[in-house]
């Protein structure tokens, strides 16, 4: 069992290494970033505890993936397997629980602890013929795959939006809108095999235009119902809602470009830093977008020439 966790540590270190950082520095930075972002989140919004629980559960769900757990079951005996799963889930949830307790969110902390323990006993995955339907059948790619992996988050966002509208809490409504946008951005964090870009009968520029167009149309399908509902119920705040909707589109376009600026590799550390800085200072988008665009064209030239 110890060997397994040593191996996991080695794998994480390799990921950090590939990111261009020494593993020790990466781990320290990771811990500092977690603490910093946690303080920032709790300082910035009253819904931090909900976001926190959602983030932790999302990570736990990844560990509960059926193929992964089937593999673990074949490797370990029936005594070690549940211990490993429980230890993994606790390793993920404990930092979140600690911060929730620190902020006196005892109910959320308790709920997360229960989720951590129960999800250690569950495998998620549909081994039968069931397929989660999506509205993205015409251009099935990032949104189809991403939506199926994150539909629980969309469901949560829509419930939060409904609550926000019901209790006339504008911030909660806006939070749900932004949550959907952030989830959509995450669809572009995964890099596809080169084959999927290569097969396009398009040159780099039209290819990127096509990718951005699809991203915007499909993001609209997911975000517009919330944005429109918020505008209807809080018409005096329509300008803010539309501005955030527009900003969401711009960030989404930037993520598409950033993905192909690194293609076929994942987004590099410097590119990741640029993305993060753009979130903190939106005017920098004016510099970042053309830069990512030029890099994307260069990267795609070889494959789509």
């Amino acid at each position, binding site marked *: 069992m110890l060997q397994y966790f040593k191996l996991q540590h080695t794998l994480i270190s390799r990921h950090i290494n590939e990111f261009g950082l020494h593993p020790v520095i990466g781990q320290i930075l990771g811990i500092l970033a977690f603490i910093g972002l946690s303080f920032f989140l709790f300082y910035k919004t009253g819904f931090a505890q909900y976001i926190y629980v959602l983030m932790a559960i999302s990570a736990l769900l990844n560990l509960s993936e059926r193929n992964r757990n089937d593999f673990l079951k074949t490797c370990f005996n029936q005594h070690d397997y549940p211990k490993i799963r429980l230890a993994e889930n606790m390793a993920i949830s404990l930092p979140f629980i600690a911060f929730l307790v620190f902020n006196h969110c005892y109910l959320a902390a308790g709920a997360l602890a229960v989720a951590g323990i129960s999800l250690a006993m569950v495998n998620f995955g549909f081994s039968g013929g069931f*397929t989660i339907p999506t509205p993205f059948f015409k251009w*099935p*790619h990032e949104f189809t*795959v991403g939506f*199926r992996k994150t539909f629980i988050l969309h469901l949560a966002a829509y419930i939060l939006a409904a609550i926000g509208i019901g209790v006339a809490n504008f911030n909660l409504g806006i939070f749900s809108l932004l949550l959907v946008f952030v989830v959509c951005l995450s669809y572009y964090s995964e890099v596809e095999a080169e*084959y999927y870009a*290569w097969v396009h*009968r398009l040159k780099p520029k039209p290819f990127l235009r096509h990718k951005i167009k699809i991203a915007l149309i499909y993001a609209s399908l997911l975000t517009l119902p919330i944005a429109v509902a918020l505008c209807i119920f809080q018409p005096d705040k329509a300008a803010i809602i539309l501005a955030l909707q527009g900003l969401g589109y711009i960030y989404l376009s930037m993520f598409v470009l950033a993905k192909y600026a690194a293609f076929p590799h994942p987004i590099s550390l410097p590119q990741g830093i640029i993305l993060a800085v753009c979130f903190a200072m939106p005017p920098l988008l004016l510099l970042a977008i053309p830069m990512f665009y030029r890099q994307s064209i260069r990267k795609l030239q070889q494959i*789509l020439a």
Partner: protein
Amino acid sequence: MIELQNLSKSYAAHKVLDGIKLTLKAGKVHGIVGENGAGKTTLFKCIAGLEAYEGSINSPHQPLKDQLGFLPTDPYFFSKITGREYLQLLCNARQLPQQDFDAKNIFDLPLHQYAATYSTGMKKKLALTAILLLPNEVFILDEPFNGVDIQSNMVITGIIQKLRSLGKTVLISSHIFSTLNDTCDVIYLLKKGQIVRQADRAGFAQLEAEMRAFTIGDRIERLELR
């Protein structure tokens, strides 16, 4: 006719392909055999434009990639994409109109299920179905018979023969010599990144015998099986 002139490819100091000269003719099926690591897949990826290389590839089809159906050894599928969506994705990529996938589902694949849950052979058949839906002139099939059941094996052999009769250019690799025997007009032996031997249909039996003698040698005796 596609001509490969002095095609070379290196990864750092390791030369994977070394001055390959090859002519791929329309209406012919060309086979490539060689040990694991001989450079077959790298050669295919160079022709497809997925790898940079030295030398030249001259093709009447420009750009070649837009008329090339490439079946990789191990086709990649997203974890949450159905067979039907995979076909749709590739047809969209080539800007083809909507097609009746059910009618063209000749391998009776469960298109409504996630492709990642398919068996090895089913994945291969799905990827092959996709490239056959596209209007390609050239086909590169890397191990098309890998993991495929005997019935589908026969269907794939029939498909390759049909492609030949339609005047398509076909390049395939296989570790099963008999499948190449049934389909190819010419077979090239790739060894350490070089084409070291070529045989037309009349010479297939001799090529297989030479390969068998060379490959097996005393390896089995060395195991000292009892």
